[in-house]
């Protein structure tokens, strides 16, 4: 039996400052997240400059807390893993430079992790991964279907061509005058409707696994606009339910079809929108009928966190991948395989 691997993860790609220690890529020893939601609320969304300012204020506190919670000293760590991209450039480089300085101070190896790989590996903290595998990554920044035939191999088979699903949720929530972040409010409202509005489903070309949500978003805006012009009363719950039904139906169908075509042994979902009750129920039902194992990590691992970065970073570390002091935040980082 080889020695245990302890990786410190650091994540600052958007509006959460997070640090975590993970053992052997599967066990969370500590997981600290400082959320900035309150501070961005008044602007109705994440303001990049403000996000960067908060990261600088929080970063050492959060890392210290993660080590304290883990009851560990830096010398016990095997490596530092940090989100290298994609994300907000000014936010990413706080985590990257803190990680580099920390790794340099303690002469530890450093690995740069792709944020989406992190989301996928969040599952490994709850349930061992079975390959081949299909991952649905759905959040405020991403909507992607990723096929993996082994650890560290990523094949993006579908992605959004415009808005991310979570982005569409936020925009629709804003037109319904729901507070930021709007996703959970739409999800809640949708369950109160018994007459959902019928919005279009966007399937794109035959056989495509890509997504598009901006047309759906426009349909919702048009519907609201027309109703206002006619002086009709709009029932927000019916709009929320109609919008959510369209998203859920398309996402479920495409994920199901991809899982069949690629003959995967396991389907996992990740990202903040994966916590959506409507989507979760639909995916669970569809895969239960097919008999394909389907998992979603607990909510705290669906949203941005550093444990997922440490989990993914552990595999990279084991595969011998190393970053160096010239690592930089890469806002448009592509999802390349590690092998």
């Amino acid at each position, binding site marked *: 039996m080889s020695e245990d691997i302890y990786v410190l993860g650091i994540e600052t790609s958007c509006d959460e400052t997070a640090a975590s220690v993970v053992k052997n890529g599967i066990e969370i020893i500590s997981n600290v997240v400082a959320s900035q939601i309150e501070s961005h609320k008044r602007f109705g969304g994440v303001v990049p400059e403000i996000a*960067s*300012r908060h990261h*600088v204020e929080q970063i*050492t506190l959060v890392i210290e807390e993660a080590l304290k919670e883990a009851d560990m000293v830096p010398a016990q760590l095997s490596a530092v893993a940090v989100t290298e991209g994609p994300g907000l450039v000014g936010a990413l480089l706080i985590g990257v*430079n803190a990680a580099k*300085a*920390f790794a*340099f*101070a303690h002469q530890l190896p450093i690995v740069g992790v792709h944020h989406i790989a992190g989301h996928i590996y969040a599952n490994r903290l709850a349930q061992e991964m079975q390959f081949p595998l299909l991952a649905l990554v759905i959040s405020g920044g991403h909507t992607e279907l990723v096929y993996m035939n082994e650890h560290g191999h990523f094949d993006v088979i579908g992605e959004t061509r415009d808005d991310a699903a979570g982005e569409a949720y936020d925009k629709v929530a804003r037109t319904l005058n729901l507070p930021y972040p709007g996703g959970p409010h739409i999800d809640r409202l949708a369950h109160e409707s018994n007459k959902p509005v019928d919005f279009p489903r966007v399937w794109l070309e035959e056989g495509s696994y890509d997504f598009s949500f901006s047309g759906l978003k426009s349909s919702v805006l048009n519907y609201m606009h027309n109703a206002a012009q006619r002086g009709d009363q709009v029932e927000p719950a019916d709009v929320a339910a109609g919008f959510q039904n369209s998203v859920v139906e398309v996402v479920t169908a495409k994920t199901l079809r991809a899982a069949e075509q690629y003959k995967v042994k396991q389907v996992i979902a990740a990202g903040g929108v994966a916590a959506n009750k409507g989507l979760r129920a639909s995916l669970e039902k569809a895969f239960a009928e097919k008999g394909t194992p389907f998992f979603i990590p607990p909510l705290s691992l669906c949203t941005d966190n550093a444990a997922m970065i440490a989990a993914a970073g552990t595999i990279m570390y084991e595969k011998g991948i190393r970053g160096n*002091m010239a690592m930089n935040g890469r806002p448009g980082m592509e999802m390349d395989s590690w092998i």
Partner: protein
Amino acid sequence: MIYLGIDTSNSPLAIALAKEDTIIIEETTNLKINHSLTAMPAVEEMMKKAKIAPANLTHIAVAQGPGSYTGVRIGLTIAKTLAWSLKIPLHMVSSLKVLAANGQNFDGIICPLMDARRGTAFMAAYQGETLDSVIADQHSEVKDFILRLKELGRPVLFVGIDVEIHKEVIHEILGEQASFAAPQNRLPRASNLIMLAKQSEEQNVHHAVPEYRRITEAEANYNKAQGGEKS
């Protein structure tokens, strides 16, 4: 005592190592290269050359801003993480004061300047060998600030690479009253930063944040919409 000094607050990158009162090595790079990419490799390289291990450091000095938002954040993040990781004191010095130190022997007012676009700049006025503050660090319309300097009725030395951008308006208002640092004295030097840091108080590492001297555009717009205080 071994000090590491880092200044990334404007486009130049300035780093230095000092043992007691001896500057061991100092480096200023005036290339417009992303500090996020180059600062840590430069520090690593310099310390290797000086045969100083991270654990040998006893103090970290950093230029706190004002300057480029991203630039000061990179320097601060590196400095506070190093200081916290190594459990050693962190010292912060105004980026403008670091620049002003280049004119320490000037008999008159020293005005460091970093351009902040749209006719504005981060500016200050210092004087004397001890660099006493005459006008505090601030974000100002360049013209307004120069008019204030004129009122002081003393010779003014302008320091900083961005001085060129505003040379015309400086000449126009101050005429003979203005002079400009020689090219070799326009770049920030981390040796100056370290010497100034030695006279400064130790900072609480966790609470150490950049001195931006300007609120964000989003906050300014929000305040305006609220009819509240202006920037």
